[in-house]
């Protein structure tokens, strides 16, 4: 294996118990140098536990963590190489912005003028110049989080850990900071792990997403892979909005939902198997009643939910299609004159349908 292909962070068979409770179960993962990785999952899925194990704050019960070729499993946090930002910012309240950022540098006995230079540089980097002498309480939440970020970056760590850094901020600030952190990462190229339960955050920021549930990895992949080819019903449901339907494979290339036959790709399932068929609301195409199409289904509009740039229609179909959601642009809604009780035909594009073996 050549030097370049060596992963920067390697987690092998990591398990973490809290008493009887298993928070992370035999988890293995590799993260490359310079990568921006998101741990995504519902609360209690073990994503924060994994992050804290990497930092050494709550060491794993068993398993090995290798960082930059060095086994760090048994190192105390103070001997590991990472910077961390928490949801609560955890800025020292009685120290000014300058003192907060300089905190780690002072301890490394960096000469005063250099500290000053570095702090100014970092404040520019996070977009907060000229706030040096303020106390955290005098800053907004977004500003505080920027200071926390600058503080974590001050000592130039090899690994940046972000534990739900944007969750305490309001939506607008969150969106802009998302972009900034992403841009910062592009500039510095520091290996970064972000823990979040917000799929939008993960999809918009990450190079790769690690979707977790019940202490295990459900899927690892780029945002696009995760969204368009979810590896499990859990991922399909957790990321974005998804229609689920009970189906049965009747022949190669054909499934049946209720009384309706649909054609789709059945390579990963076998004939006669019960499966769950999924399709994204935005992939469904709606037509007026009169059209007759392959993979078409006559439905009625139940309700319309106006969501700004588009409308989400709840549709009533024949057996097996009781809760079907379709997203339509406003223009389409007008064209189809979609309103409650209006009949429509919904088209299921074969390559947008995905099947999962029904394990229940």
């Amino acid at each position, binding site marked *: 294996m050549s030097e370049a292909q060596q992963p920067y962070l390697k987690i092998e068979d990591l398990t973490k118990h809290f008493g009887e409770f298993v928070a992370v179960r035999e988890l293995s993962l590799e993260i490359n140098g310079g990568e921006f990785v998101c741990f995504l999952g519902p609360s209690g899925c073990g994503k924060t536990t994994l992050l804290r194990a990497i930092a050494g704050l709550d060491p*794993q019960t068993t398993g090995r963590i290798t960082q930059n070729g060095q086994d760090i499993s048994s190192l105390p946090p103070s*001997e590991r190489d990472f910077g961390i930002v928490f949801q609560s910012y955890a800025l020292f*309240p009685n120290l000014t912005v300058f003192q907060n950022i300089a905190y780690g540098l002072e301890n490394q006995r960096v000469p005063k003028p250099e500290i000053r230079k570095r702090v100014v540089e970092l404040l520019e980097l996070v977009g907060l110049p000229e706030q040096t002498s303020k106390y955290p309480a*005098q800053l907004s939440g977004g500003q505080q989080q920027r200071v926390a970020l600058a503080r974590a970056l001050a000592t130039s760590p090899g690994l940046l850990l972000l534990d739900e850094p944007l969750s305490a901020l309001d939506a607008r600030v969150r969106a802009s900071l998302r972009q900034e952190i992403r841009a910062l990462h592009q500039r510095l190229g520091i290996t970064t792990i972000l823990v979040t339960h917000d799929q939008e955050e993960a999809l918009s920021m990450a190079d790769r997403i690690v979707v977790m549930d019940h202490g295990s990895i459900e899927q690892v992949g780029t945002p696009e892979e995760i969204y368009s080819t979810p590896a499990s019903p859990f991922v399909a449901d957790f990321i974005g909005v998804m229609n689920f339907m009970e189906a049965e494979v009747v022949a190669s290339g054909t499934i049946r939902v209720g009384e309706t036959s649909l054609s789709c790709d059945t390579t990963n399932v076998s004939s006669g198997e019960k499966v769950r068929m999924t399709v994204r609301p935005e992939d469904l195409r709606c037509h007026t009643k009169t059209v007759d199409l392959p993979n078409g289904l006559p439905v009625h509009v139940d309700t319309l939910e106006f969501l700004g740039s588009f409308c989400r229609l709840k549709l009533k179909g024949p057996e097996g299609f009781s809760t079907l959601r379709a997203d339509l642009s406003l223009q389409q809604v007008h064209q189809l004159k979609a309103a409650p009780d209006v009949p429509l035909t919904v088209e299921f594009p074969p390559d947008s349908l995905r099947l999962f073996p029904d394990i229940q």
Partner: protein
Amino acid sequence: MSSASISASAAPVRIRLSRDDMVLRTALVVIIALLAVAVVFPLYSLLSMSLQDMDGEYVGLENFRIYFDTPALFASITNSLSVAISATLIVLGIAFVYAYALTRTRMPLRWFFRGVALIPILAPSLLAAISLIYWFGNQGVLKSWLGGGSIYGPVGIIIGSCFWVFPHALMILLTALSTADARLYEAAEALRTPKWRVFWTVTLPGAKYGILSAGFVVFTLVITDFGVPKVIGGRYNVLATDVYKQVVGQQNFEMGAVVSLVLLLPALVAFIADRWVQRKQVALLSARAVPYQPKSEPLRDGLRFIFCTIVAVTLLAMIAMAAYASFVTFWPYNLTLSLKNYNFDVMDGGGWEAYFNSIRMAIYCAIFGTGLIFVGGYLVEKARGVSWLRTLLHLAAMLPLAVPGLVLGIAYIFFFNHPDNPLGFLYGTMGILVICTIVHFYTVSHLTCLTALKQLDPEFEAVSLSLKTPVWRTVGKVTLPVCLPALLDVGSYLFLNAMTTVSAVVFLYSPETMLASVAVLNMDDAGDIAPAAAMAMMIVYTSAVFRILHALLARILQRRTQVWRKR
């Protein structure tokens, strides 16, 4: 993702300890050991003493059998209970109305009433009893008010106790009543609920746990107090005075141990009940609550004003009488004012030396106690790992609250005076007084420190670790400065209590380490009641000056080091 590659060893991961971890763990063990020596071992000695006869032979429960077969001793239990329960009910009633008027109304002069109500904290409990003697005693000014009854006995004990425990009850009730959610009241009003019903369905349930907690605290304070019944109890025996009589009067240590264990029981029950209540109390005030703004109600506010005035005047009258009597040359025959009673050096009871000893002890307690208790609190709240050790320390820190001072004092005699104890050299020194007093008031200080520490972000330590900063630096630069106001409060609490306490130290002083509060007791015992009042007033003056200094210092610190709190 490559999980198949290597299977890492399944051996549990053990993180190597950093130097900080080792320092913190050592400190944990040291403080637990200190508390074991200063609380647990003495209590064990007390227990084993109660199971011995005079020659140190094990006799099982024989001493307890004798105790319960002696009607004179046994009667004290009922006496103690009835006095404590009466005082608790009276104080709770008065303090609740008083606290309600201060927190939930627009009654004028609320700040003044709040200040007056806290005055009794500055005085030893003995002062209340001495003052009562001047008001209602044999030569009392208002003796006729009793209509032939005597103040010496349960009446005096109850009134005196009510006086000195009033601020303790009030402070808890003020806290309980000051947190109200205006939305509940608005909802009740919107539903056209009559006022009395709002009071029963919103106000009282909200303060329920505060009232219970205040009740337990007051009950424990009264039943374990020794100063008031000693001075004004007359021939009415209570458990606390029995302990003193058995140990100091009759030198019957075994029976003293038995009585103090009997005394420990109600205190322990109240302690456990209080803990249970505290646990049930969930935060009624969510972050979204809207603070309640009382409206002006002229008629009701007027009635409340009258009530509070009566209470405040009574409290002031107690202090004022002691102050006045301390300057009277020879009560009641020569009422000219003089400093004769302050000439302590010509009287029995330790002289001015005792006063300065008290100040020295109070300063030591404030300095060493605050330091020790803060470190302990820090370890409990912020140390990483070893949660069982931290829990152990927390339990050890909670224990002193359940142990009455008198019981602690006796336990110290048995433990430190034992010939085989290598720590015996402490006996009779200033050291043992300081240790005993710190331990006696450990729990409340510990809880104050914990509350302050809990307000710090739990991730500060994690951030410091990630910045490779040693723990002491973060403690020095962040934790301590942020907790400074709380530390001042703890120091002040320890100082004031060290000045006024009698119960534990009364068994532990030596002629060289006589204390002012004990001198009050001894002078009163010797019939020198005016000098006793004078010495008690010296404690009040000192405490008052200290409180003022504390307030000034706190204000300066607030301005100098707490700038960051401003938005």
